């Protein structure tokens, strides 16, 4: 909590704060009540719009299979993205200028292109290549789109992770007779990876949210199944709220995990562990 703009309040400030706090609470609660009242006016809080979510069939036939597809796509993507990112990240650290710049261009390209654009491209292009089963095309398209984008983010994480290590790490590795490649492989990258773990957990939130883009290319994810429930019962708004809450609970858990990891792993690496999601900006540094 930032205690920046105010210091320990005295008795008068405390009294004033109580009043302001009460007024603000009334305002916040008031807005909430007003929204709920408007919704109730329109009959959106009626029990029959919400009871479908208390029936096991809604969950067993729609929401849980949808959640499973969402988690499946996210789980595959995190693995493929980590591999793709590690390869590109090592490419960006390579001693060969050509490998460095080619990896750099690939990374910058995939970070600048919207994930949805890639998903649509793969969704429409894969059937022409005839390499995957037609039924798997949406899943593969979602995974490929997520892999290229998030892999590029991971590549940047690997690179910045290695750059952020204290110079002494490499100097010590070279001093005991390791070659540069060996130092990179057995000293620097492992520590950079540990420093990266919390950020990977944060990126998992991004991946999980982006699987919902699969909705647009007919992947049967949680959002799609929520929409099916909503169209069947005439309660799309309620179904979307339930789906959103499921995402929020999972993502909140992942965020907590990320900050826990950042604290736990701080002692295992000379690098800095941060739970913050990796930055997106185009970097000018090679």
């Amino acid at each position, binding site marked *: 909590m930032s205690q920046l703009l105010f210091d320990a309040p005295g008795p008068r400030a405390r009294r004033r704060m109580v009043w302001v706090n009460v007024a603000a609470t009334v305002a916040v609660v008031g807005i909430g009540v007003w929204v709920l009242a408007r919704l109730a006016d329109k009959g959106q809080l009626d029990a029959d719009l919400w009871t479908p979510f208390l029936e096991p069939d809604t969950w067993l036939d729609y929401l849980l299979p949808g959640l499973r597809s969402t988690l499946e796509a996210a789980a595959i993507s995190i693995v493929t993205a980590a591999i793709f990112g590690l390869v590109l990240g090592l490419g960006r650290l390579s001693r060969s200028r050509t490998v460095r710049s080619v990896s750099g261009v690939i990374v910058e390209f995939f970070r*600048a292109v919207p994930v*949805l*654009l890639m998903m649509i491209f793969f969704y429409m*292009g894969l059937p022409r290549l005839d390499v995957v089963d037609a039924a798997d095309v949406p899943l593969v398209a979602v995974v490929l789109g997520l892999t290229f984008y998030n892999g590029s983010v991971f590549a940047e994480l690997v690179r910045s992770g290695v750059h952020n290590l204290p110079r002494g790490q490499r100097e010590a590795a070279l001093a005991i007779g390791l070659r540069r490649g060996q130092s990179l492989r057995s000293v620097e990258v492992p520590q950079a990876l540990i420093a990266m773990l919390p950020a990977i957990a944060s990126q998992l939130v991004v991946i999980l949210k982006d699987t919902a*883009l699969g909705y647009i290319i007919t992947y049967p994810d949680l959002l799609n199944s929520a929409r099916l429930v909503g169209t069947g019962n005439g309660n799309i708004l309620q179904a979307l709220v339930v789906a959103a809450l499921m995402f929020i609970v999972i993502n909140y858990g992942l*965020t907590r995990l990320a900050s826990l990891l950042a604290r736990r792993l701080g002692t295992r690496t000379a690098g800095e562990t941060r739970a913050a999601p990796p930055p997106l900006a185009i970097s000018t540094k090679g």
Partner: protein
Amino acid sequence: MTDDSFTDDSFTDDSKGEPVHQGYLDDVSTAFADYDVLGAFWVNIQLTVYAGLIALVLGTVLAVMRISPVPSLRWAGTTYVTLLRNTPLTIIIVGCVLGLWGQLGVSLGTGFQQNFFRLAVLGLAVYHAAFVCEALRSGVNTVPTGQAEAARAIGLNFGQVAGLVILPQAFRGAVAPLGNVLIALVKNSTVAAAGSVAEASVLMKEMIENRPDIILTIFVVFALGFVVLVVPIGLATTSLSRRLAVAR
């Protein structure tokens, strides 16, 4: 768009009646001449500008709430950010169109096109406001405590400390993270496709459907369009953040 228009023109020369092989580039340029690619990107730019301005205002309000001494406002700001940041943007935009408009009948404009556009702007704005708030908070963290303490010491109240001393410096410290939010917003404007807004990704899909033979070229053109939009923002915010950084 009908298929015969280009097959006729591209592969036969009507005057002689003989098939003439036309170069791939001509083929591509005739395909692109039929579509308003720039117009589609213009929709993305408009979505970005409107949503960005609303998100900046809303995000600043949220950031002030989160650093204020009033517990209930802090709680409300934190709750908003936690909820919106963890919800997929696609759900928010689908919720705006199918939920707000389809089910509740909330209409933000006349005609389908304007209504869907404004609903998508609303969805993009409320989602990115959470990220603007976080970017500004990281900017506030670059302001040393001494600045706030000195401002308090000369007798400024919370509003003055925040408005005259902290926020001006925080905005300068937050240029880089705000630039990241803007880049994310440009790319996320394609998600408006989920809200039936005819923007670049929708046009790309339509073009690929009609000309599957040049799918790779179509994708590369649209992808480069986004590279052209995003890279200058990245370069500008990087150099701005260096120029504006408060020397400490």
